[in-house]
C-alpha cells in the first residue's frame, strides 16, 4: 500500500509544496532527502531557485507571450493558445523574431531560428519555451 507525504521547502521568501506518494520504504528516503535539504539550506537555496525559474508554469509562459503579442492584436479577437501568430495578428516575420528575442531573455533560453520557423501558434511557442526551460 502507498502512503503520501507533503514536503514543504522554504527558500528565500518563497514556499514550495510537493506531494509525494510512494511505498513506505521509498518515502523513508524522500524524508531523508527532505531532512538533508533542511540541514543544507545554503546549498539547496540555489538549487531550488534554479528549479523555480526552470519550471515555468504554463499560465506564466502564455501570459508572457500574450503580453508581447498584445500590440499586434487585431480588433476584439482575444489572443488564445490557438492563435496563429503570423496569420491572426498584424505582425511581420521580423517582428516575430524580435519578439522571440525578448522572450529568450525573459526566460533565459535561446530558441534557434529554425525552431522558430516551425512554430505557428501561441501554444506551440509556449510548448517550446517550457521544453527549453526544463532542459536548462
Amino acid at each position: 500500500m502507498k502512503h503520501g507525504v507533503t514536503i514543504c521547502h522554504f527558500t528565500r521568501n518563497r514556499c514550495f509544496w510537493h506531494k509525494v506518494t510512494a511505498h513506505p520504504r521509498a518515502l523513508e528516503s524522500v524524508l531523508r532527502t527532505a531532512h538533508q535539504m533542511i540541514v543544507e539550506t545554503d546549498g539547496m537555496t540555489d538549487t531550488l531557485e534554479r528549479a523555480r525559474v526552470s519550471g515555468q508554469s504554463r499560465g506564466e509562459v502564455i501570459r508572457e507571450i500574450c503580453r508581447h503579442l498584445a500590440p499586434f492584436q487585431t480588433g476584439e479577437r482575444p489572443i488564445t493558445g490557438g492563435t496563429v501568430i503570423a496569420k491572426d495578428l498584424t505582425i511581420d516575420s521580423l517582428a516575430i523574431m524580435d519578439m522571440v528575442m525578448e522572450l529568450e531573455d525573459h526566460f533565459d533560453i535561446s530558441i534557434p531560428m529554425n525552431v522558430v520557423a516551425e512554430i505557428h501558434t501561441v501554444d506551440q511557442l509556449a510548448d517550446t519555451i517550457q521544453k527549453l526551460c526544463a532542459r536548462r
Partner: protein
Amino acid sequence: MGLFDRYAGLLEAYRDVRTTGYDPFQIRMERVLSPTEAIINGRKMLLVGTNNYFGLTFDPSCMEAAIEAIRAEGTGTTGSRIANGSYTEHVALEQEIAEFYGKKHCMVFTTGYQANLGLISTLAGEGDQLLIDADSHASIYDACKMTQAEVVRFKHNDPSSLEARLRRLGDRPGNRVVVLEGIYSMLGDSAPLREFIDVCKKYGAYVIVDEAHSLGALGDNGRGLCESTGVIDDCHFIVGTFSKTLGAIGGYCVSDEPDFDILRVTVRSYMFTASLPPSIVASVRQALKVVKAKPELRTQLWSNVATLYEGLAAKGFKLGPEHGPVVGVHLPDRMTAIGFWRAMLDAGIYVNVAVPPATPNGVSLLRCSVCAVHTKEQLEHMIEVMTGIGRQLGVLDDRTLRVVGGAR
C-alpha cells in the same frame, strides 16, 4: 492556393510604394554622368544614394585598367574558379588583398552577397552554433537558411545580448561562429567591435566581420572597422565587397586560418558560378592601389559626412546614431518616407528609400550615402531641399512656417 497568393500582403505594400507615380525599386539610370550625377526621367539628378564612397567608378586609372584588361583577355572568363575561370590576375588580386590586411589567405568571390552566403553557411556546419546580429544584411540571413548549424540572433550592436546567448550554450559541443558588420547598411552605425571581440574570446567563438560599407572609410589604411578598433588579428575572417568603395563588383574573404584553402572546394557559391571578368579584376586591383595612395579621399569622405549629418541634424531631422558614410534619415511612416523620396526626386536628388520589412524595427528611412567627391555645394543644396520638403510634409517642427501661415 495560387503561386503568388502568399505575396498578397507584399503586393499591397508594394502598391503603396508606387502610389506617387514612380516605383523606387524600378528607377532607371538613363545615363550615369559621374559618381555624383545621372540622368533619370530625362533630368539631371544629384546622386546621394549609390554607395560609391570614394567615387572610383569614374576614376580614369581604374577605367583604363579595365579597358586594357578587356583588350588583353576578353570580356569574361566563362567559367568558375575551380574550372577554367582562375586567371593569373585573380590570384594576384587575392594576394594583394591578403597583403592589404596582413593576412595569409584570401578568396575572391563574384559578388559580396555570394561571399557571405557561401562562406557563412559552409563555415558553420552541423552541430555548430551560428550567432548573428539582429540587423544583419540579407546575405547573412540567407546564409542562415542554408547552414546546417543552429542559428540564434542577438540584439543589434549589443555585446551583452551576444554574451547571454553564448553563456546559455554552456558546455554543449560545437563551434561558435559570430557574424558582425563593420558599418550597418541602413542606419550607418558601426559595431562596438572591441567589446564584441572580448566576449567572443571569453567563449572561444570564431568571428566573421563584414566590412562591406567600411572598407576604405574606416582605419588609418582604410581596412575598415577591424583596423580602426585595432582588432584585425582577433578577427578570424574578414569579408568585404568590391561594389562600394572600390567601384566595381565582387566579394572577398581574408583569414589566417591554416586550412583556409579547403574552402575553395567546399564553398558552393565560389565553386558553381563564373569568376569575375578580367576587366573587373583589373579595375579592382587599380582601385585598391588608389585607396592606398590617396588617403585624402577618406578625409574628404568624412568631411562630407560631417557636412551632411550636421547640416540635417541642425535642421531637426532624426538621423542614425553616429556619423557614417551612410546617413539614415528617420521618417514617421512608410507613406511619408515614400512621399519624401518622390519629392526629392522631383527636386532633382536621388536617395534610397527603405521601408519595412527591409529595415530594422519597422522604421521608414531615406538612406543617403555620401561620396568623397560630392562638393560642399551639392550637399548644402541637398540639405536646403530636404529642409523645404520636411517642412511641407510636416516632418520638421518649424515655427517660422507656422508664423507665416498664421499671418495670412
